[in-house]
């Protein structure tokens, strides 16, 4: 949280001041501070995954008129923990004819870029690890590494289903990256910045009416479809289509390596939902601007008390929007059939790509003709 805004609490500054007050040097305080936001965000991501796994089980149960997990903790809340524990103590099997190095490296390469992308996710004005200037572009670049990990594990498993799954994953990922990037570009064009903070700030002028979803409805749908495809969620879960490919590139994996894939895919899902809410649903913004509410009660926005409330509302709003989208993704998974590989590629290249190009050009035209509404 290196940026220092005029308004807003700066936890880093107070942390550093407190440590320097205790007699530590400035650089030592900074070094102590550095891992803290990362740890917090990593923990948040992991808890987010646990919640998503629980939701997935409960919602799928509801969709199929079952009860779902109910014995592990109240309402089965501890079920994801039990799952994780089971995977942790399972035997780690590497097939005899597999390529051991690549087999181990594959899942790691899948998880690391996804976790790194959390660097740019803001939960409030100052609540992110680092406001890097290339912001959202970093996420696009990092998510392009993932297919290499998938190809690697598919190849190293020495299994035809795994190889096919890996190849499908790579093909899918490449195809959907382009419309995804183009729809992000339209948003970036409107906010004149790649930084996620600027993108959210640009949407929070007039509460819910200034969210990008009204200005970019087509971009929103394209982004959501592509995000689902990048996460390999149904209806786009071809790489691990169990009826055709056993489990795709995951077939030979067991224990903690399988857990890494599992973790990676759910972290990616939560991350994608977060980014949709940041790009199109106003990020941490409340449907009515907090400044308006504060002025209604004749309170100054700069008060520490109001600042704490604003920050909490921001975090709650971000998580609420994200989990609404996660809920949508889970509902989609349990209600839609899978597309075929040719339909998938047709949709990506022949439909989404041209539409997203047109959307980009249209946004540029609107930006030139109505600079007030489309960020001149």
């Amino acid at each position: 949280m290196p940026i220092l805004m005029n308004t807003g609490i700066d936890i880093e500054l107070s942390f550093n001041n407190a440590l320097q007050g205790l007699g530590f040097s400035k650089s030592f305080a900074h070094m102590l501070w550095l891992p803290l936001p990362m740890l917090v965000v990593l923990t948040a991501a992991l808890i987010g995954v646990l919640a998503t796994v629980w939701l997935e089980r409960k919602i799928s149960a509801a969709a199929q008129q079952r009860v779902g997990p109910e014995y592990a903790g109240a309402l089965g809340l501890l079920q994801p923990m039990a799952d994780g524990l089971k995977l942790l103590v399972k035997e780690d099997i590497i097939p005899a004819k597999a390529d051991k190095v690549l087999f181990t490296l594959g899942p790691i390469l899948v998880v690391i870029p996804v976790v790194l992308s959390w660097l740019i996710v803001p939960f409030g004005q100052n609540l992110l690890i680092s406001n890097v200037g290339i912001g959202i572009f970093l996420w696009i670049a990092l998510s392009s590494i993932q297919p290499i990990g998938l190809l690697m594990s598919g190849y190293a498993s020495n299994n035809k289903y795994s190889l096919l799954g890996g190849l499908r994953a790579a093909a899918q990922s490449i195809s959907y990256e382009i419309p995804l990037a183009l729809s992000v570009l339209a948003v970036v064009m409107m906010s004149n910045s790649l930084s996620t903070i600027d993108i959210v700030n640009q949407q929070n002028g007039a509460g819910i009416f200034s969210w990008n979803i009204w200005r970019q409805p087509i971009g929103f749908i394209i982004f959501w479809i592509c995000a689902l495809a990048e996460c390999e969620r149904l209806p786009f879960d071809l790489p691990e289509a169990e009826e055709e490919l056993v489990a795709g590139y995951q077939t030979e994996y067991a224990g903690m390596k399988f857990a890494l894939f599992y973790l990676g895919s759910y972290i990616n899902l939560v991350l994608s939902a977060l980014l949709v809410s940041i790009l199109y649903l106003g990020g941490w913004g409340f449907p009515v601007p907090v400044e308006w509410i504060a002025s209604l009660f004749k309170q100054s926005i700069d008060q520490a008390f109001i600042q704490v409330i604003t920050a909490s509302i921001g975090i709650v709003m971000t998580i609420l929007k994200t989990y609404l989208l996660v809920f949508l993704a889970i509902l989609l998974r349990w209600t839609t059939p899978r597309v075929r590989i040719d339909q998938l590629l047709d949709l990506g290249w022949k439909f989404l790509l041209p539409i997203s190009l047109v959307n980009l050009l249209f946004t540029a035209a609107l930006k030139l003709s109505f600079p007030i509404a489309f960020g001149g």
Partner: protein
Amino acid sequence: MTIASTTQQICFFLLTATIVSGALGVVLLSNIVYSAFLLGGVFMGVAGLYLLLNASFVAAAQILVYVGAVNVLILFAIMLVNKKEDLKPIKGLQYRKILSGIVCIGLFILLVRVDLSTPWSIPGPAAIGEESTIRIGEHLFTDYLLPFELASVLLLMAMIGAIVLARRDTIKAQYSIEKDNQSEIINESKTPVLIDQKSIKN
């Protein structure tokens, strides 16, 4: 020496070690799949060097283009034609290896000489950091407009070439290329669009 500069130096040495050893691995390993994966590692190392130079946009672009597109496509191509066949031993392979080794060492010596004889200005110009994205955009659309447009024409040509190569049915009808060993994979019942139907039936 501050913590930042120490970290920077450690990162620099780690990255260069990764790049050099990875690049050697790309050339020297006999398993082409390993070479392709190592190539991805080398690209990532170069992106890391850009990051050290405070050029984060270039680093991200490097990852997106070279790792995410070029390297994935290379891997894809290798794995799609994943045929195990024993290559015939080439005559005089030993001499060829020695010869190419000499050429490589010569090139290396040349580079070292350039490195030593050039008066480098240290430290170089200050990095513009976060502003670089805007500056790159400005340059691309003002003084580097012609190279930019030429590159786009080049890419268009490459794309048309790829489409022509991928649609072998049109070539087959026109020039009747002899069947290669992969032709059974290609779906031959496709109807060509680019040429009229009558000429095929004849």
